[in-house]
């Protein structure tokens, strides 16, 4: 199948064009924008919920975006097994929509943190991570958020661990996970999780900002290439 990506645009999205650019210009695949007031998904087979500050982050991050018309279609699409990746604010929207468990709290430092971080890939057998080379101990991807402090109850954390749903953890460049390299206070250093079925990924780091060699880092490509390979093979 030839993949066709859709990037949802909410009022306040600001990483939508980066995601579009990466899919179209760097990876050479079909991509279209999906406006939040529409409910037509335009026959896409991958949906990207991009980063930004949808609806001004009013009330709680992602809380209002979750009720926009397009999200009803996205929830349907995901429940039928469609591939969805939520990045940063997109991850927060997935949590509010109940497509992934847990919530995001304010960073423990109260600071907006914008920097490159290393991620250890905890599950390489997902459709989002299969192209990450096994010899890579950690991938380098930037974060930029004020509320990325992942919280869930103990039961939920245990379930995430038991089902291998924790995909990325904040680590050092050797893939060692510790409190020292936790940028926001997330429980278990969680940076990204998938749903039980494995078709919905939420991650705080921005892979679309680490795809163009001009910017000095390309590890983000592994994630998009994994999706593309999954759909083409």
């Amino acid at each position, binding site marked *: 199948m030839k993949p066709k990506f859709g990037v949802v645009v909410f009022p306040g999205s600001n990483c939508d064009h980066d995601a579009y650019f990466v899919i179209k210009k760097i990876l050479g695949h079909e991509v279209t924008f999906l406006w939040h007031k529409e409910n037509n998904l335009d026959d896409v087979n991958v949906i990207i919920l991009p980063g930004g500050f949808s609806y001004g982050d009013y009330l709680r991050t992602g809380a209002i975006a979750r009720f926009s018309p397009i999200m009803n279609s996205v929830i349907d699409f995901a429940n039928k097994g469609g591939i969805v990746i939520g990045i940063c604010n997109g991850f927060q929207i997935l949590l509010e929509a109940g497509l992934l468990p847990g*919530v995001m709290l304010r960073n423990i*430092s109260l600071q907006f943190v914008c920097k490159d971080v290393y991620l250890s890939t905890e599950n390489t057998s997902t459709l989002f991570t299969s192209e990450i080379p096994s010899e890579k101990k950690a991938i380098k991807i930037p974060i930029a958020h004020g509320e990325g402090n992942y*919280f869930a109850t103990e039961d939920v954390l245990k379930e995430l661990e038991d089902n291998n749903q924790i995909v990325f953890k904040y680590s050092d460049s050797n893939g060692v996970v510790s409190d020292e390299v936790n940028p926001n206070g997330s429980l278990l250093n969680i940076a990204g999780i998938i749903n039980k079925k494995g078709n919905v990924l939420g991650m705080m780091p921005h892979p679309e900002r680490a795809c163009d060699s001009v910017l000095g880092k390309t590890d983000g490509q592994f994630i998009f290439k994994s999706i593309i390979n999954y759909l083409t093979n």
Partner: protein
Amino acid sequence: MFKAKVIIKRRPSILDPQGKAVEKGAQHLGLTNIRNTRIGKYIEFDVLSDNREEAEKEVNDYCNKLLANPIMEDYEFTLEEVK
């Protein structure tokens, strides 16, 4: 019509970094007796209904589905009849 006044509180088990930071300000002010500062939200709105039960149901729906996130927040509200 009713006037609804909703208070949303972070669950006691959930850390409140914002409350902690604000409390540091209290210490800097020399207010040495202040402890356990926690920050919540106050929201008020009108409910266009003359039936209290119906109004309560609608406020509960609003709180559960949108205003509060039950994973980390609890809410309480009052409904005052406005003539």
